[in-house]
């Protein structure tokens, strides 16, 4: 999605999802796999986080934090609550099911029967358009199978597009649980650790016990203290 005016919360949401489903190498993965490959592995072997026991607001929260480290998405609390409310209760049931179905297809084993399972990356976007149902829809008409495209670099990708038929801002949701309550059976998604400012801190060696030795001042450290420079 390219838009003329940046919309902060929209961009944060799409970017977090795009990164989680991208072919960028996941820096926290010891095997050097892509974000999408790591997520597929998690989904297939550890936790089906798209089944009916999992809630989409919680799933989004976990996916987003697995790429930001600890920051919530969107950063603005009001926008975040509005977004969580949309995922938890505003979206019609067929849209929620289509989201589960399309993402499941992308994360399950790929092959001739399921080309989405082999795509290199996924793009998430929103579009305002009149829909047949007159409300939200997941492109195309809440279908369960995402369309597979090929980009200019011969990479395959899926576009997951939430279509919105409503011409109104998302309603405020001041009482929306934030963060969403945990779902049963959650296993930890690999989380990228945020790099510390100023690089990696090394552990300082333990201080030697004072034996009454006098500190010797070198010429260099003396110059440093007095602010002299050569």
């Amino acid at each position, binding site marked *: *999605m*390219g*838009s*003329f005016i*940046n919309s902060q*919360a929209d961009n944060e949401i799409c970017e977090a999802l795009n990164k989680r489903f991208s072919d960028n190498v996941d820096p926290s993965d010891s095997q050097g796999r892509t974000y999408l490959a790591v997520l597929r592995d998690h989904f297939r072997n550890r936790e089906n986080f798209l089944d009916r026991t999992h809630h989409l607001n919680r799933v989004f929260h976990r996916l987003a934090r697995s790429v930001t480290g600890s920051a919530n998405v969107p950063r603005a609390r009001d926008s975040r609550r509005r977004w969580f409310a949309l995922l938890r209760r505003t979206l019609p049931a067929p849209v929620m099911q289509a989201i589960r179905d399309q993402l499941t297809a992308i994360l399950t084993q790929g092959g001739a029967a399921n080309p989405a399972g082999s795509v290199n990356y996924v*793009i998430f976007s929103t579009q*305002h358009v009149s829909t047949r149902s007159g409300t939200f829809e997941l*492109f195309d008409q809440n279908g369960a199978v995402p369309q597979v495209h090929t980009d200019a670099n011969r990479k395959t990708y899926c576009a997951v597009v939430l279509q919105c038929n409503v011409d109104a*801002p998302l309603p405020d949701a001041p009482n929306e649980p934030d963060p969403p309550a945990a779902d049963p059976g959650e296993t930890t998604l690999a989380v990228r650790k945020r790099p510390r400012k100023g690089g990696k801190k090394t552990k300082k060696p333990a201080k030697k016990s004072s034996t009454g030795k006098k500190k010797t001042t070198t010429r260099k450290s003396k110059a440093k203290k007095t602010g002299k420079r050569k």
Partner: protein
Amino acid sequence: MLFCDHLSHQEALEAKQANREGLLAGLLTDFRKTFPDLTFELQLDFSIINAQALRLANRQLVTIYGGLALHPRLGSDGLTLIVLHEVGHHLAEGCRSKRDPSLACECAADHWAVTTGMANLRMRTDRSLHMRVAVEELDAVVGPRQPTKGKYTKGNKSSGCWAGGWPSRRSALLARDRSPQRAGCCISNI
């Protein structure tokens, strides 16, 4: 687009009464003639103040929403620049958007709009774009929604990206000769 600003009903009504729809029809005719491979859509029923480039089902879409199309502070030049920018997302080469790698990044789209895009439009349709007028119109619309400081971007001054704040973007649009980076767009929200 779920969190975009909306144009008031009153403003939209005034624009419709002022024959804005005639202006928009002419604009889209010229763009369709110049860029026949793209699909241009006018969504006047949606009051979002924005426009969008999107690849969907093998179609290259450019959508102008009602909030921008009917905005009382925008005239022909401002709208032409906006649509050229969206076309630039599809047709510009170089740096890709982090949000959608199938599209050019913001700077590449801007630069393409005011160089190649503008030239193509003039050649095929005689429609000219007065850059200073366009930028002045956009001052009132984009400026308040795209503040200067780091709200929209992570600081990465070395990349040369100008799309983070309206003042830097405005300067780059007017200068035209400043080409964008080939890679490493700094627009990043997470």
